[in-house]
């Protein structure tokens, strides 16, 4: 039995559940995760919804924090309510708790 025609793509089904990305969004997100080589280090606790990165990620590159956040904010359409709590030891702040307030998982 073939599943050839008229099947919705997996991403379309995710979108229907409120968990999808547009082609532009997913490209931006993958690019930023890749640019900062976060694929091994990042810890994402939220669902891929508006709160996509609600939680903690680890990087030694502080620029990554802002680049990721910019991408997340753009995805979520949110401009406010973001708190970044650096937890690493000075002079290298290597861990960040990020919370996008008011958006529940």
């Amino acid at each position, binding site marked *: 039995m073939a599943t050839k025609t008229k099947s919705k*793509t997996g*991403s379309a089904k995710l979108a229907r559940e409120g968990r999808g990305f547009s082609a532009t969004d997913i490209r931006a997100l993958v690019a930023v995760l*890749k640019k900062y080589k976060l694929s091994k280090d990042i810890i994402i606790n939220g669902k891929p919804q508006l709160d996509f990165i609600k939680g903690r990620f680890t990087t030694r590159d502080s620029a990554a924090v802002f680049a990721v956040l910019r991408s997340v904010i753009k995805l979520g359409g949110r401009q406010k309510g973001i708190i970044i709590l650096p937890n690493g030891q000075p002079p290298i702040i290597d861990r960040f708790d990020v919370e996008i307030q008011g958006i529940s998982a």
Partner: protein
Amino acid sequence: MAAPTGATRIFQVHPLRTCNLRCLHCYSESAPGQRERLPAEIVWEAIASAAKEGYDVVGFSGGEPLLYEPLGELLGAARRLGLRLSVTTNGMLLDERRVGWLSGGNCLVAISLDGQPESHNRMRDSPRAFEAMQERLPLLREAGIPFGFIFTLTQFNSNELEWIAAFARDQGAQLLQVHPLDVIGRAEDSLGDAAPDAHELAVAFVETMRLQAEAGDGLTIHFDLLDRDFLAENPAAFFATSRPADASSCPFAESISPLILEADGTLVPLGHGFPRAFALGNLGASPFSELVRDWRATREPEFRRLCREIWEEAREPAEWPFMNWYSEVRQRAANWKMPGEATGKSGKHHVRKRDGKLARHALRRSHRSA
């Protein structure tokens, strides 16, 4: 030296094409009526030769390897050589006897899982495939045999990854491997439009990152996609360099990993059904060592040229930072114009079975030495 398989060197054995299922995406077109199978002696001889050539992991697939009666004996013999083992199965035929084959350590059981029960059963063309598999998982857990799941990602099922990861975790799996569908074998007819495109791969990439974070250390999620930068920075690991001058004195595992033995006795690089122009040849006609020698002299330079082309393209700016390298190599190999002098033995069709007497002796020797 690195390889697409990392630090391990994998020899993948498909001893038969008989299967209790007829899955829509089966790359080897295995089915209940398929009778093609290798004599155990040929398989053992190949494993022993592969071990000598530096392969340290032997993976059994098929067909359904649990239908291959000599499997237990072969696993035991390979274990005694110090090889690490994996068996890829649909899990439906696990019983106490077969779990006994898998026991003894050093063996990971990889169970195919194609989504939630309904999706799994549709892909497996069997209404009880999921239920029968799930019922048998306790046998593995009780025997302390580590196991994981292999999920075939299509254009239509990235939304099921979350369920799959939760199921894997709940069942006590150690591994979830996400493998993009290759439209080869039976999938060419039944799933021609189902290979995931770049967008679906990207969505799945983000999903697997999230799910890995949620799963923590208990479950490793591996996505069979290659980082283009990693490829660009590691040409030797992807056969994109010229053959080293001392290559002929190096173990063959440093030249090709994974190496595949198909159920008709053909040895090919990288994946089942790899274009025959690049095959090493058939073990029914020539010994392993002879096929290796011939391949190195004839097809390896062309194979490396092909891989070099892919590597050079990977260095160019691209829309996406990852690629399905295995699929790319396979597609390019299928269209590669092989110069006449590079055909070696791969272009011939060998059907003559060799006398398995020597290999039977080797198998017995292995038992005695254990």
